[in-house]
């Protein structure tokens, strides 16, 4: 499910089935590494689109949460809300190092997409999606 009016309506009635939330978490620092952050954000979004297709019925994918200086305080606040709403599994999907407390984290690889041919891109992204899907399933099987 996505954070839109239609899906949120479904979510309300089906929270028992849609028990997992994914928070895409990304940096938007305007520093030397800005281009890297931008690339990471792009990958993160593609992975999320694929996750949504595969697991729509069990996941809420929130809009991306952006941060600077790797600050995670907002994430902490959000997690509390999500728990109160009724989600059992909270998963942060990110390239960042930060170790958020009370939640699962799936770390994405940094892939320099811009220098790749389309086929290569596709292959790398597919691999990444596959890995993330496996991680999600293993969280479900915990």
């Amino acid at each position, binding site marked *: 499910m996505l954070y839109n009016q239609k899906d949120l309506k479904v979510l309300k009635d089906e929270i028992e089935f849609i028990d997992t939330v994914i928070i895409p978490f990304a940096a938007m620092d305007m520093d030397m590494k800005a281009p890297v952050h931008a690339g990471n954000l792009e990958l993160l979004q593609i992975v999320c689109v694929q996750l949504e297709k595969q697991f*729509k*019925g069990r996941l809420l994918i929130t809009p991306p949460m952006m941060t600077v200086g790797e600050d995670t305080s907002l994430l902490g606040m959000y997690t509390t809300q999500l728990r109160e709403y009724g989600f059992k599994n909270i998963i942060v999907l990110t390239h960042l190092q930060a170790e958020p407390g009370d939640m699962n984290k799936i770390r994405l690889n940094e892939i320099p997409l811009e220098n790749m041919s389309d086929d290569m891109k596709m292959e790398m992204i*597919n691999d990444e999606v596959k890995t993330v899907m496996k991680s999600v399933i293993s969280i479900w099987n915990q």
Partner: protein
Amino acid sequence: MSQKVTRRQFLNYSLMGVGSFMAAGAILPMGRFALDPLFQGEAQGSMITTSVKAEEITEEPVKVDFSYEQQDAWYKSEVTDFVWVYRDGDQIIALSPICKHLGCTVTWAGDDANPNKFFCPCHNGLYEKNGKNIPGTPPRGPLDQYEVGESDGFITIGEMFENELV
């Protein structure tokens, strides 16, 4: 608008059938995540030719990708979806991979314990090969069907409709 699907090889996920992929480079603007397309799927209508040969279709369901342009209020984008296609006698059947419970993607033989069924990994939904949902699992109806045809030996995919096999 009907267009031949590019011969790009979509990689098969071994884990489960992920067919769909956006065209590379057509990265969704951030806002797209929160927006619900208001005017959807207009570009369809005629049959879409795929890159899979009809003669390659057997009784074992396989993924067949098809791409079309989707126009909504603000964007035009190329969307790639897929259907499960198999042969039944002299008929070719195409089923939607979208689970009728809450919309995850189902896989043929995705569960080791059920080698001849469609399996939904989200809440262990099961369907017979003809799309019939198996009672006792969460799905609320059979998988949708697609119009399917043949053009120059290639499979073509048309409109989706309610399952008429079960």
